[in-house]
């Protein structure tokens, strides 16, 4: 049984911020939704409420950065770049302010539908010069991403998981260090964030079917370690599957394609994720199934690459973790 950690961000942020007075906690009216309500109550002098006004919040944070502070901006990921894109570029990315953009509810991890789902955030953020892009895939990475992001000499965008988060790893996130979760030689599987858990669900079934998987978990999306990806891709027989909680265009699928093409390495590539489509509101397991982003979609993609049926069906995969709709650790607000 997987260990579940409740609200790992809340504790990790507080522990870090209280040690660093130049860290400021900014919120745009989603304070409990981003698990910083306790911090606000216990450390009001280090907390700034900027209200529902993200354009101002981003430029204001640029000004705080100019004064030598390192503001952590808390909101849903989508609200940190769609409306305030101009401010993101002019006030934060261009001048390399040490602003930490903490984007909650990445991809389809929210039932909030199109307006709440950050499905192109990686594509947007990774194309911005000076930006670092990180993504947490488990409780350990959520816990360690706070201090690690704060070491970046410039702005950083982080995809953060909230609520009850499984613990998959026992070593902290280190920028630039991808995790090699298995070292097979048939197919390379590249995942990040919540899709890593999906790939792990398929692990034993694939092993039982005789498929040797090489599985990489990415937590640093920019800078992107293309050389390592190419090395791993070169060591498998059949090709590469990317599985991401994001549009396949502009995200990890695109990064891997660029890496392979620039290296001149001919490997087939299947890109799983949102296929040039918006999503709608629903539970995470439902959305990941509906849009072909779950463990079963991964198995089918691997079958396409190997040309062989594995005989794996939903029953052979490890159980989907279903979050209680009204769990005590879940914020009330979307």
């Amino acid at each position, binding site marked *: 049984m997987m260990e579940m950690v409740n609200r790992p961000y809340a504790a990790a942020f507080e522990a870090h911020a209280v040690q660093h007075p130049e860290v400021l906690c900014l919120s745009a009216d989603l304070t409990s939704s981003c698990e910083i309500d306790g911090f606000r109550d216990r450390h009001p002098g280090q907390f700034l409420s*900027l209200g529902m006004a993200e354009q101002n919040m981003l430029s204001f944070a640029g000004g705080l950065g100019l004064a030598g502070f390192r503001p952590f901006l808390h909101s849903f990921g989508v609200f940190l770049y769609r409306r305030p894109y101009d401010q993101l570029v002019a006030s934060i990315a*261009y001048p390399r302010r040490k602003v930490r953009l903490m984007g909650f509810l990445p991809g389809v991890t929210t039932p909030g539908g199109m307006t709440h789902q950050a499905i192109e955030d990686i594509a947007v953020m990774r194309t911005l010069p*000076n930006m670092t892009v990180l993504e947490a895939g488990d409780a350990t990475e959520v816990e360690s991403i706070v201090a690690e992001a704060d070491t970046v000499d410039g702005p950083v965008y982080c995809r953060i998981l909230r609520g009850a988060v499984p613990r998959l790893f026992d070593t902290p996130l280190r920028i630039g260090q991808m995790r090699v979760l298995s070292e097979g030689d048939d197919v390379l599987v590249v995942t990040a964030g919540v899709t890593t858990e999906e790939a792990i669900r398929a692990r034993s079934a694939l092993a039982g079917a005789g498929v040797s998987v090489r599985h990489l978990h990415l937590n640093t999306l920019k800078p992107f370690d293309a050389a390592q990806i190419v090395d791993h891709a070169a060591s498998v027989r059949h090709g590469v599957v990317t599985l991401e909680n994001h549009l396949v265009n502009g995200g990890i699928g695109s990064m891997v394609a660029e890496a392979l093409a620039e290296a001149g390495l001919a490997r087939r590539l299947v890109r799983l994720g949102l296929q040039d489509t918006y999503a709608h509101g629903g539970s995470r397991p439902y959305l990941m199934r509906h849009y072909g982003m779950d463990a079963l979609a991964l198995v089918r993609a691997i079958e396409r690459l190997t040309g062989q049926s594995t005989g794996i069906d939903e029953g052979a995969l490890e159980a989907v973790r279903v979050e209680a709709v009204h769990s005590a650790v879940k914020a009330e607000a979307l």
Partner: protein
Amino acid sequence: MRNEKSTEEVARGIRARVFEHTIRNNGGYLSQACSAAEQLAFLYNEALNLGPSTMPLVPPPFAGVPSAANPGYRTGAGYNGPFDAVHDRLFIAPAHYALVAYACLIEVGRMAPEGLEMFNRDGSSVEMIGAEHSPGMEVHNGTLGIGLSTAAGLAWGRRRLGHTGRVCVFMSDGEVQEGQTWEAVQAAAHHGIDNLWALMDVNRQQCDGAMDDVMTVGDVATKFRDFGAVVAECDAHDLPALRAAAATPHPGRPLIVLAHSRPTQGMESLMSRFPRLHYVRFKSEEERARMNAEIAAELGVAPVPLETQ
């Protein structure tokens, strides 16, 4: 630091330099010099507590954008003096006023006249739309409406650090059409940021023409007050009035000085172009020659010698 010239002289010098530049280059932000000359002269020559420039008199060429690979990167803020706890900071929010701001830097001895020769030349840091690395600039404000927010954040941070220096934003009234301006004022008022003040050039002009034709903005003073600012109003060309307005106490709130200006002040011949004043490019050699003679006479300077075509 005080310049030896009077503020009136600085303002006259700004108009003359921008006029000469515009005639010589057959285009320029001439109207902005008319409306803002006294305001920028006032800021640099007396209102702001600025230390001596830390930059060379002749601006260095463009030295690259900020990046991890460009550790020597500097903004143009050094022309406004050093960063320290006691001195003020200035943002030129409408970066389109750059030509006027550069002329002001020359008039107050912070930049050599040669700097203006580099205006809008390839490879120069003296850019047409003021960039971070342009003389006197500290942040990019070319997308209008973001300056006040940045200044509010800087001011909040400086207050927390115990700095006595204030943060000033020179603004244009067109920026009140941007929603972010109102977000910035409400945030500054909510957080009691009173080491922040703005001087707004209310010339009622924007790129497309007169603001009343492009987008009516209503009673800006009342709107700013309703959003939590202290507002003072004055004639932008009346220096004693500017001084009084800027001295308005504003404890616990940002101060917005609305300086009502005329977009042709000092160069009434420009009225023949009204309402297309945002960027003046002469339609013909005849117009250029006529403006050269007429405006020179108004300014009391010699016409700009032009090579015959």
